């Protein structure tokens, strides 16, 4: 370690530089010209290996880690390991959420996609997911692999993200008294066995029970699931429901206006299912952005999050006769193939105050 010019000579450096240059050219060639005997997966693997070789050469020879004190290598490797762990955790975090809800959607929306009809491969077809949604779901490598792994059917309406029993208990604790009036959105009551009160209530969502408007309505849905699902929205619309001026529109005080309008109740579901894009004006302020489609959330989740938003930030005082959304209502709005721009048109047709 004590010699003056440790490790490498100019000749070594030049050789390394040459190799780096050649690898860069190879990378370019592999991408620019389709190599017939390499599949896409193999090409990606080749690209990753080539970049790792470049990475290693620079670190070992140009940064002299090959001949330098081990302490430096130790510190740097620790950083790399942390970075890699973060990288993997981030990927898994997002993938599992996306896949699980996309999966729940595939098996929940259309009730009886009996395993007996058609080959397993056709099940997605039968569940009626539009092509573009499938493309969206499988558009990144992670999801594609995982959705192939997770092809075991799960019971209807039971997503991986449904709240744990403890949360159910907590949310149901204060509101147990009147279960038969409405369908509760807890997984227990939406199991495939169609109980009479449940199917009866879904066909008549009329606001006939207006004697006590806000109180019973506000409690008849899965609040824990609603709050949990709102985690998807909070980044843009904020925990205060006020959005970000100039960037993301507020939900507070705005949703009730949409809800109260003629057709507004189903419009809100469509915004979540199909997204919304283009210029809108909310309380005199213009927003020109895009709301993504949340089609890959489950029906339960969409219903719950809508109920959560319509009963938060003082919104519950502004809606006329609020009836909680039901999963079936959400499911009925699916598969219309609307574009975010069409949803914007729909918004224009609402008569807003």
């Amino acid at each position: 370690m004590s010699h003056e010019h440790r490790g490498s000579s100019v000749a070594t450096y030049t050789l390394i530089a040459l190799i780096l240059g050649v690898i860069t050219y190879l990378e370019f060639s592999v991408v620019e010209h389709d190599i017939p005997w390499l599949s896409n997966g193999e090409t990606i693997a080749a690209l990753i290996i080539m970049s790792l070789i470049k990475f290693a050469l620079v670190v070992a020879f140009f940064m002299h880690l090959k001949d330098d004190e081990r302490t430096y290598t130790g510190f740097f490797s620790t950083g790399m390991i942390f970075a890699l762990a973060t990288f993997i955790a981030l990927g898994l975090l997002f993938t599992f959420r996306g896949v699980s809800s996309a999966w729940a959607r595939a098996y929940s929306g259309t009730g009886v996609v009996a395993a007996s009809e058609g080959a397993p491969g056709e099940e997605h077809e039968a569940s009626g997911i539009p092509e573009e949604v499938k493309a969206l779901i499988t558009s990144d490598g992670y999801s594609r692999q995982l959705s192939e792994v997770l092809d075991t059917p799960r019971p209807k309406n039971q997503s991986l993200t449904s709240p744990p029993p403890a949360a159910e208990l907590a949310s149901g604790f204060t509101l147990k008294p009147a279960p038969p009036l409405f369908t509760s959105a807890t997984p227990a009551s939406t199991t495939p066995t169609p109980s009479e009160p449940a199917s009866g209530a879904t066909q008549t969502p009329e606001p006939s029970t207006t004697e006590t408007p806000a109180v019973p309505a506000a409690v008849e849905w899965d609040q824990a699931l609603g709050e949990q699902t709102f985690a998807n929205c909070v980044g843009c619309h904020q925990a205060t429901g006020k959005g970000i001026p100039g960037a993301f529109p507020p939900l507070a005080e705005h949703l009730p206006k949409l809800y109260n309008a003629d057709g507004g109740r189903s419009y809100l579901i469509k915004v979540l299912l199909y997204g919304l894009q283009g210029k809108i004006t909310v309380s005199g302020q213009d927003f020109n952005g895009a709301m993504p489609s949340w089609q890959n959330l489950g029906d339960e989740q969409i219903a719950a999050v809508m109920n959560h938003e319509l009963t938060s930030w003082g919104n519950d005082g502004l809606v006329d006769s609020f009836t909680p959304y039901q999963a079936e209502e959400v499911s009925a709005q699916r598969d219309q193939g609307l574009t975010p721009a069409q949803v914007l048109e729909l918004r224009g047709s609402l008569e807003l105050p």
Partner: protein
Amino acid sequence: MSQAALEHQPYRSTKLPDIKLMMWIFLASDCMFFGSLIGTYLVYKGRSLVGPTPLEILNIPLTTISSFVLLMSSFLMVLALHALRLDNIPQFRLWTFGVAFFGSIFLGFQIFEFTHFVLEGLTLQQNLFGTTFFVLTGTHGIHVTVGVLWLSSILIASFVRPMSSKDAVYLEVAGLYWHFVDIVWIVIFTVVYLVEFV
């Protein structure tokens, strides 16, 4: 350890020059920083609702050239350090200037690319691709800018105050930073640009 460096630096229990150890620790932390940014880019990859998409807008030949320029600047960096260790000051100045110059060319490419993208409608707020792409490559661009400024200041300092092989550790530390910026780009070039076109 180079003798020169040790003469110049106060000893610690690590028996390593503080400045160099600090740089490696900083680089380790920067790994995590870029790891998160690249992870974020990948997580949101293919989830943009509106264009422009990466396939429509990224330019592989152009980026290959700028990647090559950055790689070669790393080569000049080791030459500069080698020259300074041999007390060959004219060569040290030449190669250091070369590094800063090549770094500036890389930045020029990036400025061209960003301007082109914005004119095509890809802004920070346009879609998820715009957001994650500009934050990732922009952060890298800032690193390159800092590196260019750092090396330029060393070059200028060498005219103000004579430099010798005893000062090599200062150039070495700047070099470590520069090579790190280079390896981050090696990863970005593959993950953001090349893989998209397979």
